[in-house]
């Protein structure tokens, strides 16, 4: 094309912009999501891109690199427009000033009030809102109905208390010697805060301290759950490999069909249906000490705008849009992903698979600990939380383990 033509075309384009007020070029926003939730994020993005001129591009970040990537990008002043990350890091990120204040927008949005309470609590710092629910997951009890039948248990009646859980697990081990009643990843702090902690706080315990003198590992449930696990370990109801599992076999062991019950996440439904279509498994809330104390850990991802994002206004529009009925149902539920709004738990897409409804309802009753230094307290390989579990279950010193964790957690919280 001759250069004079190109100049004429450019001038014409410029005149359109000048003549028609409000004309704007479509923008492309960047969204970073951690790998484990990028599939859900992609569904949302596809739905948005299909109906909006401004497009969103997804960048997947390995789960364990998200904190480093965000921290360095904020400090370098080169951030994405949107970021989806494990909600547990919300307190640390808000305190560090990494996120944009969204109070003005979200506090007046009627859909925000319907988002699971755990997300709303976690995204609040100093009375301000810095994000909201995006792609949740929640902990549940998954159990093998075939093993239940072999042990003479009713496959439609999962345990409602931790005493029943122990009883059923023991019966499974006795009836099927090659199988085990219960499984947990004994060297994975994150897996266990997700699956064992709800059994404790459902009974009234307070686990992680928010300051150096706040309660830690206190209340009913802590000692009882540890005692139950220790007794099952001693009785070899739990396989030996559990002690060394850093989470690599979190679901792989259950998938072998030799595990009666284990705490897991909502993701297990799709995983088991895809990998083991013949496996007959059930889903139930994680039990507490007494009936009616079931609880769960609300995990998954929040969505927020990093400080210094180039398209903060458009990004805010996306955040509001993803809370609408359309996005929650057509972007998430239609793809068998849990909505972050509790009021949409029982939706048309989950009707054919009641296990999704059970899981989605758990989002409404679940909690998420609000703690700074969560990684140090829980996820680190020698964290006080993990050390407590290992000392109590594998060494048998339950009281010493709780006391040790209490002291170590308070020291971390005081930093």
């Amino acid at each position, binding site marked *: 094309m001759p250069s004079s033509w190109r100049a004429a075309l450019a001038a014409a384009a410029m005149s359109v912009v000048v003549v028609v007020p409000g004309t704007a070029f479509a923008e492309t926003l960047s969204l970073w999501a951690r790998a484990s939730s990028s599939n859900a994020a992609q569904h949302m993005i596809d739905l948005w891109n299909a109906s909006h001129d401004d497009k969103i591009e997804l960048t997947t970040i390995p789960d*364990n690199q998200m*904190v*480093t990537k965000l*921290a360095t990008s*904020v*400090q370098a002043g080169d951030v994405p427009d949107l970021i989806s990350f494990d909600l547990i890091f919300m307190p*640390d*990120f808000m*305190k*560090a*000033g*990494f996120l944009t204040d969204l109070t003005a927008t979200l506090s007046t949005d009627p859909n925000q009030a319907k988002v699971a309470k755990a997300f709303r609590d976690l995204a609040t710092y100093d009375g301000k809102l810095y994000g909201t629910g995006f792609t949740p997951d929640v902990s549940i009890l998954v159990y093998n109905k075939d093993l239940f039948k072999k042990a003479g248990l009713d496959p439609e009646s999962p345990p409602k208390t931790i005493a029943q859980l122990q009883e059923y697990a023991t019966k499974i081990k006795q009836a099927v010697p090659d199988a085990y009643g219960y499984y947990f990843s004994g*060297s994975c702090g994150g897996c266990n805060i997700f699956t064992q902690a709800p059994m404790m706080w459902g009974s009234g315990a307070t686990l992680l301290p928010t300051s150096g003198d706040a309660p830690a590992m206190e209340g009913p449930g802590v000692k009882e759950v540890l005692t139950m696990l220790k007794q099952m370990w001693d009785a070899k109801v739990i396989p*030996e*490999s559990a*002690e*060394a599992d*850093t989470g*690599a*076999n979190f679901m*792989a*062991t259950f998938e*072998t069909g030799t595990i009666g019950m284990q705490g897991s996440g909502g993701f297990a439904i799709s995983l088991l249906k895809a990998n083991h279509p013949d496996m007959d498994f059930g889903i139930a809330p994680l039990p507490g000490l007494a009936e009616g104390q079931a609880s769960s850990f609300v995990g998954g991802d929040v969505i927020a705008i990093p400080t210094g994002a180039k398209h903060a206004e458009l990004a805010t529009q996306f955040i509001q849009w993803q809370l609408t009925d359309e996005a929650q149902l057509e972007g998430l539920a239609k793809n068998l992903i849990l909505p972050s709004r509790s009021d949409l738990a029982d939706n048309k897409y989950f009707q054919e698979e009641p296990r999704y409804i059970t899981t989605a309802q758990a989002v409404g009753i679940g909690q998420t600990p609000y703690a700074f*230094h969560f*990684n*140090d307290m829980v*996820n*680190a*390989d*020698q964290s006080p939380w993990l*050390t407590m579990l*290992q000392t109590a279950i594998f060494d048998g010193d339950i009281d010493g383990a709780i006391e040790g964790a209490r002291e170590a957690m308070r020291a971390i919280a005081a930093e």
Partner: protein
Amino acid sequence: MVRALRNNVGFLYVLPALAFVGFFVLWPLLQLGYLSLTDTSLLGGGQFIGLENYIKAFEDKKFWQALGFTARYTVFITPLLMGLGFALALLTSPNRRLQQITRGIIFLPVVIGIGSSSLLWFWLFDQQVGLFNKFLVDIGLLAEPAVWFTKADMGLLAVTISITWKVIGFGMLLFVAGIQSINGEIGEAALIDGGNYWQRVWYIILPLSLRVILLTTLISVIGSMLAFDQFYIMTGGNPRGQTFTAVYSIYQSSFISFKLGYGAALSIILTAIILVFSSLQVILSNRSPSQ
């Protein structure tokens, strides 16, 4: 005057290399040194706190336990790599036809990334689906599949097997180069004097390979002191942090606990320890006899 000028011209020749080392090695090292004197967090901020991180490090039992384990791993794996590397160099020597093929096969794992090979061995050692366990049960060495990572010694052994498989080809290659550089006339003289194969290995090849042995030891010691990927992937530091290495400890402090300043102090301590070992070996190497 002329001599000094000539030296200055020589200096100009090495200036690009010096600039490269200064920019990519010394400057980051200085930055690391400064970082170690602050309480900088991954989440931002950071004040100058002097030697506080170092004082804390010397009281940090977990770090010293990790250093102890790293030393144990180094002492365990280094002689193994040396002995096997030397033996393989000798064993693959006699038959010239098969030489290239066998050496090629043994060297092959060296080109695989350490992360990939560790993951491969992690699953090979798996209790339920691991082929290694199945093999040991089939040949009768194990009564039932073992859980390799519940005991520190078993974890150490598993990692040692995987790393030996991964790097032994490199050691072998260094020894092959060393052996081939020995003047053939010395061997021929020994042969004429009636020396048998083992006598030639013991009295000629081994002493004249001393420099290669020291070089291989240096590489092995530094590599082992910096071990991380293999333990991160295979043992996860378990059981109970007993297989934490020094670098694993630094990673934990910096990226899990977000304490960059403290992690930097631990890095400086580890660097100093490795420097001491390296210097000792370089001194020994310079004093060793050459052909």
